């Protein structure tokens, strides 16, 4: 079997295994697995509204996934996507409420503000890693908490003591009547296009630019990269900054599309952490991230329908998702299995 075919088959088998495990758990727990999956399917594709909402859900996952994947490709583990996303969310919402401008300026400005905020939040661990060799994992974990508290405080300041900002001006919104009507008033917004553009941006940076070449090289071997004349420090910082910018734009999707405001957060959104899973499901490639986000987002969104339509706790989908990721990680076994089967067939 060709390598490409195997590469495709691995995630497919992982998904099948995940669903199988989920089915077994449902059966053992006394639920009807067929009803459960029917509800899940219904929850994702049931009608236009749901399809719209599913796509909306996928949008921030794509960006969070890109953020994690991009850092990974440069040899960095960015657990701070969550925090970068939160500051991006705030920045976009702030620009959205603070001024009213023509849409053609306002919307890009708000997205840019989010990217800049996220980039700044990524710059800190990048700088500390490059200059002081501080492990980026700890710094980004700490910065997540800092982002949460700082943004909550800023919301209070900006909104004059309230727990949320006003809604952003329409000129900064990603929402569109057209998409809403198309999908039966779902909150589907133009963010998905922004996300897909960012997918292309990541692909372009990594695969088409000298910067991408350097980032990958530094990711694999800092020593050799330095010997080859690359600026390792600069590349580490740059990788974190770009990664943070992707995450920040992910926040903008929420600020300008899904919610159109930002409110105090009692805890993390989870999107940033899920971004790790998305990136890894997608093997850290731009296109892979789209698939990872689609799978992850669909399951998460569709799961909401399970307690409703089949009386099964949503957590079953969490289990299924985890099992899928587990088997993607352990793809060696699946590959071995595919090879064995392949060989047996050849033998015959």
């Amino acid at each position, binding site marked *: 079997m060709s390598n490409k075919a195997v590469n495709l088959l691995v995630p497919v088998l992982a998904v099948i295994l995940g669903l199988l495990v989920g089915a077994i758990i449902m059966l053992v727990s006394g639920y009807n697995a067929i009803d459960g999956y029917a509800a899940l399917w219904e929850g994702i594709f049931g009608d236009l509204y749901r399809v719209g909402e599913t796509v909306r859900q996928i949008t921030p996952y794509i960006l969070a996934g890109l953020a994690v994947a991009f850092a990974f490709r440069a040899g960095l583990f960015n657990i701070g996507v969550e925090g970068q996303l939160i500051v991006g969310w705030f920045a976009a919402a702030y620009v959205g409420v603070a001024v009213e401008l023509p849409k053609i300026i306002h919307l890009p400005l708000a997205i840019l503000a989010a990217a800049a905020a996220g980039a700044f939040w990524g710059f800190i661990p990048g700088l500390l890693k490059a200059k002081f060799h501080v492990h980026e994992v700890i710094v980004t974990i700490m910065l997540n908490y800092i982002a949460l508290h700082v943004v909550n405080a800023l919301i209070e300041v900006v909104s004059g003591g309230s727990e949320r900002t006003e809604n952003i001006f329409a000129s900064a919104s990603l929402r569109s009547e057209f998409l809403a009507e198309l999908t039966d008033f779902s909150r589907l917004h133009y963010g998905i296009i922004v996300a897909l553009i960012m997918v292309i941006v990541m692909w372009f940076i990594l695969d088409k*630019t*000298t910067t991408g*070449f*350097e980032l990958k090289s530094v990711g694999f*071997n800092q020593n*050799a990269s330095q*010997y080859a*004349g690359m600026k390792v420090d600069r590349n580490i910082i740059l990788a974190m900054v770009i990664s943070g910018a992707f995450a920040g734009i992910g926040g903008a999707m929420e600020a300008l599309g899904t919610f159109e405001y930002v409110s105090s957060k009692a805890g993390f959104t989870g999107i940033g952490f899920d971004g790790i899973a998305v990136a890894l499901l997608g093997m850290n490639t731009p296109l892979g991230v789209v698939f990872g986000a689609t799978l992850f987002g669909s399951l998460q969104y569709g799961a909401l329908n399970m307690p409703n339509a089949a009386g099964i706790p949503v957590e079953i989908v969490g289990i299924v998702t985890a099992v899928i990721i587990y088997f993607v990680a352990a793809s060696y076994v699946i590959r071995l299995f595919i090879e064995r089967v392949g060989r047996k067939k050849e033998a015959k």
Partner: protein
Amino acid sequence: MEYVIEMLNIRKEFGSFVANDNITLQVKKGEIHALLGENGAGKSTLMNVLFGLYQPEGGEIRVKGKPVDITDPNVANNQGIGMVHQHFMLVENFTVTENIILGNELTKAGVVNKKEASKRVQKLSEQYGLNVDPNAKIEDISVGMQQRVEILKTLYRGAEILIFDEPTASLTPQEITELIQIMQRLIAEGKSIILITHKLKEIMDVSDRVTIIRKGQGVGTVNTAETNPDELASLMVGRQVEFRTEKGEAHPKEVVLSVKDLTVTDYRGIEKVKKLNLTVRQGEIVGIAGIDGNGQSELIEAITGLRKVKSGTVAINGKDVTGFKPRKVTEAGVGHIPQDRHKHGLVLDFPVGHNISLQTYYLPPISKNGVIHYDRIAARAREIIEKYDVRTQSEMTPARALSGGNQQKAIIGREVERDPDLLIAALPTRGLDVGAIEFIHSRLIEQRDRGKAVLLISFELDEVMNVSDRIAVIYDGQIIDEVLPEATSEQELGLLMAGHSVRTTKEGAEPHVK
């Protein structure tokens, strides 16, 4: 029983690739048995089978006549087989003693008894004249001492049969001499040795018999006394070969590299290069001879911008490049074949093709306005792969999968084809077989003949003597003398490198600089 080890018709496959195709090796008690073959011939694989790291697909192993099934290194240890690996198997942040006792610890009340263990190591070390400090950390000791630790590891386990996989590849001439003495002492103690080396001279000097393998197949075994290097070489390659590098006279012209009063410190702030002066001209190869650790690495790193210069200057073609970033130095016309190809020379997880463009990816025609053209990288890679005979499946194969010789050829191709005014080659032939060495040497000479400057750093007297036009001897961070190869004997050079008799030799080698 005549043979202590018999490996009969051993077959080892990696997927569809046959690394060992029915090879037979028989080792007599008390002999040094050399194993010879080109890079990738299958020597290490065969030894890894003997040591239980690989399970063979076919064949039989007998130890002292008894068939044994060596399923893992523990079995090998129990059979009295010890191995000194090509790439050292030492835990860098452990002490010598810890490395030696690992897996076979001496305990007192459940706690590792380091005191007693290090005493034993000390004793063993003295018994075989190995001169090892049991309490030193591996990362702090020289390569030579690391190797002696590897030997101690096997002796500590009571090995009777010792396998040495390319033990001399990374040793200095002094260390090699010591190692040979150690091996002879081991034989005297009744042990048997299997020795893998690419250096025919060593085989001729120390071994009793030689088994030759070629492309995974056994060619046969000969008595060392009844053969000569030429015959061994042709047996190894499979045709008549001439391994002497042809080299005409040098015609040095303008100064390319000029180092003045250079002082460089290491990361601890200790001066490793002290007010060093050196020039290299167009059309000459200057060899830096010296024992490892006398400032060679720091010197190169300072020239290439990888290390901060404390004082002094470095100029390329008359242009001061002191303190330049590596990229700027490269652009000033310097090519660099680094000492450690895995760590510094290659991004092992990148395809060979990417590695070949590791210095030029940002320049036209590969890149324009920051946009990179991978098809051009591939095209260039194919050219160089062809021209430098880099054996790889394709330019997209990860560099990791290439043999050391081919990795090195790719690096040479990359650096030489950039046509630098100054080519710095640090230990360019380490671990390579004679064929590959010859290839690389002729590339260096070719550069010189095209009017380029070449700076060669080597620990091997042979190499320095044969390739250089002028030899600068480095000792304790300074060039203590410069000699002409044709006017100097190996003995003299060796003494110089050890820092001896600076004045007398200087007078003896009077007319060296033109």
